[in-house]
């Protein structure tokens, strides 16, 4: 994540801006798709659930493999995504609220996470201390090379989906998720994980994933929004028929943190060889494939090995002493 660290610093105090890129009118099979979507939008995408009429893999799964990235903003601010991190407002933060993207919280309608009072205190305490952390707990864990977890991985850099019989695999910028498809059983509930345990199946154009075994440690971003180790997440990845976009729709249930289940929605766009790499949404390198059409591949992802924390007041990554004895 060498490039990531730099990009993070650059983006730490601003909304992700669409890089000034030339749209290249390269004709290809994909040109028949709908007009190319913008990289950043300020409104939600409407993608209905239904049958899948697009291409399928040999095992019957809808073929959604490839590169994807969210269309709103990074993890600076969960409920006002384009306003910047706590204490680090963007220019857009001065505009009327309806000129920025809506909250990622799509239910309830007020766009707020329905925290229990004591949980709201914890979230606000983190947000108030984020810019000048005086305790370890105020450091956003991904700044220390923790995996981004659920749901933050879905709006932290672009990522790649690879599909196999029985599996959907997400290669995120920070961490990896293996989603088992079918009738698998979840692992023992005592095992709590940064990315949880994911079992899924396809319903038409929708990948439905049940995420249990969450450790709640990853946080949802720099505003300190969170779930606990008692949470379950019901994810629905609703793919548009043209394969160009999907909505990540995730319902969080955790009676120890929330007064009721609530839902987050993250509009997401596909990136292909027709898009210019931009070091964030589409952080890829060219394939050295002489004589073949232009294509890109995911570079090595490194973080803790770089000996350094990044972003948002990050301190205290121990890398000089052994961390394990095995």
């Amino acid at each position, binding site marked *: 994540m060498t490039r990531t660290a730099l990009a993070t610093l650059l983006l730490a105090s601003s909304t992700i801006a669409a890089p000034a890129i030339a749209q290249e009118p390269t004709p290809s099979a994909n040109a028949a798709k709908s007009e190319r979507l913008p990289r950043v939008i300020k409104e939600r995408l409407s993608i209905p659930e239904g049958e899948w009429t697009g291409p399928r893999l040999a095992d019957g799964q809808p073929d959604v493999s490839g590169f994807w990235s969210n269309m709103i903003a990074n993890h600076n601010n969960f409920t006002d995504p384009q306003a910047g991190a706590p204490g680090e407002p963007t220019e857009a933060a001065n505009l009327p609220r309806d000129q920025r993207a809506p909250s990622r919280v799509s239910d309830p309608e007020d766009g707020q996470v329905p925290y229990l009072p004591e949980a709201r205190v914890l979230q606000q305490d983190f947000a108030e201390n984020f810019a000048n952390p005086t305790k370890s707990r105020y450091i956003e864990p991904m700044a220390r090379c923790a995996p981004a977890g659920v749901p933050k991985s879905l709006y932290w850099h672009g990522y790649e989906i690879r599909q196999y019989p029985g599996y959907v695999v997400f290669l995120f910028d*920070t961490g990896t998720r293996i989603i088992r498809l079918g009738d698998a059983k979840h692992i023992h509930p005592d095992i709590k994980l940064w990315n949880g345990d994911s079992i899924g199946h396809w319903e038409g154009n929708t990948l439905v994933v049940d995420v249990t075994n969450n450790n709640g440690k990853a946080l949802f971003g720099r505003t300190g929004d969170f779930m606990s180790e008692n949470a379950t997440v019901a994810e629905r990845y609703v793919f548009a028929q043209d394969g160009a976009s999907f909505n990540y729709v995730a319902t969080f249930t955790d009676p120890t943190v929330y007064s009721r289940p609530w839902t987050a929605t993250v509009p997401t766009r596909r990136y292909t060889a027709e898009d210019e790499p931009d070091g964030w949404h589409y952080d890829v390198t060219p394939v050295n494939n002489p004589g073949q059409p232009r294509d890109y591949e995911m570079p090595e992802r490194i973080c803790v090995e770089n000996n350094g924390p990044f972003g948002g007041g990050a301190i205290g990554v121990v890398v000089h002493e052994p961390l394990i004895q095995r």
Partner: protein
Amino acid sequence: MSGNLLKASRHLAVALAAFVLSAQAHAQDIPRLPSGKPDFSGVWQTLSEADYDLEPHVGRRDAPPGQGVVAEGKIPYLPEALELRQDNYENRMQDDPRLKCWSLGVPRSVYHPTPFQVFQRDSDLTLIHRLGHQTRTIHTNGSLHPEDGEELWMGDSRGKWEGDTLVVDVDDFNAETWLDRAGNFHSEDLHVVERWSFVDKDTIAYSATLEDPQVFSASWTINVLLHRRRDPGFVLIEDYCQTLEYDQFYPHKGDK
């Protein structure tokens, strides 16, 4: 190292190679992709002592005994490199990069005694290792190493098929990773050629030939077997051990 042990390990390596060759000839029942290529999908793990020390060694406080997995018996170090290896050995309890949960590199990530899962398509193999956050893509789409390759922790892997053997050229390494817990090492000039082939449907013969003119006087080869994890219900559980130093502070916990 005693001469007898060294000799025994050479015999073992020769015997293993002979066994692998004879077994391959009968490997009709191996899993295959629809394209007909061998399908290495699954969870794999070595039973060998390779990661403790690639060379023949007796048991010690931090390692069980092992006959070694180097076909040539010992690693052909250049004299100065051998001194560095000895320094590494003496400081191994502090300096082994694995203790910091860093990516182990290639080939060490393959014979570290923890499982990894292979996901395979015609265009590539994806290796997801349990320890830390390491992943590796072996491209099998005919692509070449990048023209101006950066130095990488896991190297850049480009594979091709020779019959039922996957031959992977791995290049563009940095000099940060070790080859085992005994301090065996390499420089950024390391170049590895891996060979992956089925012995039977649940066993892979894995070999890695290493060359590095800064460190070794000749190329040399590691041979290990990889076994399919067949424990009922086995799942590759994440092990992001780089988080152990601070994970107690989340979510919103601790007063430090």
